[in-house]
């Protein structure tokens, strides 16, 4: 049934389209047109060649003269600068757009990469956590407020692990790992630790009070700095939800 219906449609449409068949007496002649077509091809090629010469001549002239070459280079660098500026304006709604890319300790600065060494002496680098939001918590075993917020940091890490949060405890203990390791075990610290030297603390603005906590966004920029406890009488200073995108 479907087949016969298709054939009916075919023949009906074919009949309609057959009405367009040109008159049989009309025979388009290739030989009559060929000479004219070839003349148009020749003219077309000449015109194209002239355009190429016309376009290439000023370029060659400009390149061959030192003055125009220098002006061209200046123009190019100006274009690059304008494009760069336009990109910054385009990204103006992004936090810290256009800020310098050298590491610093102010909000919006790239955070210093080096966080110290681990218990085996291997360097702990922020860049190995790139793409994650990192809470860098400067602390020491002899600092009671630091000890108070260890459970909070453990809980934060556990709660936001799926969203890409990492917590790094950076100790400034002068006694080194011999003091930190047993303390960490006793306090059940879940998150990775590093032992900082003066280079690390000075790169983070010279940590002058403990605890001091930095929140680093996924691009490695400092988005929050909290000197003192994360939770005090004023409430929770940490704004991790907005940084992590929840």
């Amino acid at each position: 049934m479907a087949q016969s219906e298709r054939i009916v449609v075919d023949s009906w449409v074919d009949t309609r389209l057959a009405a367009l068949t040109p008159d049989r007496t009309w025979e388009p002649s290739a030989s009559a047109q060929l000479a004219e077509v070839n003349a148009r091809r020749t003219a077309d090629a000449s015109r194209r060649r002239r355009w190429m010469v016309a376009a290439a001549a000023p370029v060659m002239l400009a390149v061959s003269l030192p003055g125009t070459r220098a002006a061209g280079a200046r123009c190019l660098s100006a274009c690059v600068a304008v494009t760069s500026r336009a990109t910054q304006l385009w990204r103006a709604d992004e936090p810290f757009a256009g800020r310098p890319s050298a590491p610093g300790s102010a909000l919006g600065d790239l955070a210093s990469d080096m966080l110290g060494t681990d218990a085996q002496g291997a360097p702990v680098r922020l860049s190995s956590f790139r793409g994650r939001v990192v809470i860098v918590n400067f602390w020491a075993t002899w600092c009671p407020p630091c000890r108070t917020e260890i459970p909070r940091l453990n809980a934060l890490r556990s709660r936001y692990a799926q969203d890409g949060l990492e917590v790094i405890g950076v100790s400034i203990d002068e006694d080194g790992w011999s003091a930190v390791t047993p303390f960490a075990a006793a306090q059940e610290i879940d998150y990775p630790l590093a032992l900082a030297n003066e280079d690390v603390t000075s790169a983070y603005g010279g940590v002058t009070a403990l605890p001091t906590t930095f929140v680093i966004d996924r691009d490695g920029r400092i988005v929050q700095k909290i000197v003192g406890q994360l939770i005090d009488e004023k409430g929770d200073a940490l704004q991790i939800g907005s940084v992590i995108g929840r």
Partner: protein
Amino acid sequence: MDADAIPILAAVDGDAEFDATFTAYYPRIARVVARVVGDPGRAEELAVETFLRWWRHRAVRGSDAPGWLYRTAVRLGLDELRRQQRRARYERLMAALQPVPATPQDVHEADDERRRVRFVLARLRRREAALLLLRADGLSYEEVAVAMKLNQASIGTLISRAQRAFRTEYSRRYGTV
């Protein structure tokens, strides 16, 4: 130096290929365009234009040429048809604003089957109209598929769909058939 004196870009071999292809395909290309635009003179102009475009389009040579020529010719024809119909609509609108009595020739042409078919073709999608025109020109399903750069396995379905679209549009315009 006179720019006209610069030798043309095409090589001798390219010229020979152009001449051979033109001689072999020009009549068929002109006729398939004439199906669309009606006027033989205009069809020949568009056929020549098709070959000139092919010559400028250096990537298409050898066995790819016939399909490219058919495809381009039908598209140029359909574009011309749509232009004609836009112009006709505009003229009808002007005539409505400044009415003049219809001549017997007007009445005859309005009833002309060829005009109806061309009107419907111009209303179809360009690919559907092209499929119907190439098929009506006697190309096999395989040749139509090559010309339109379509999968040979689906060409039957596409032509059938184009026919249904033609019938639907024709019926909508001119009543049940």
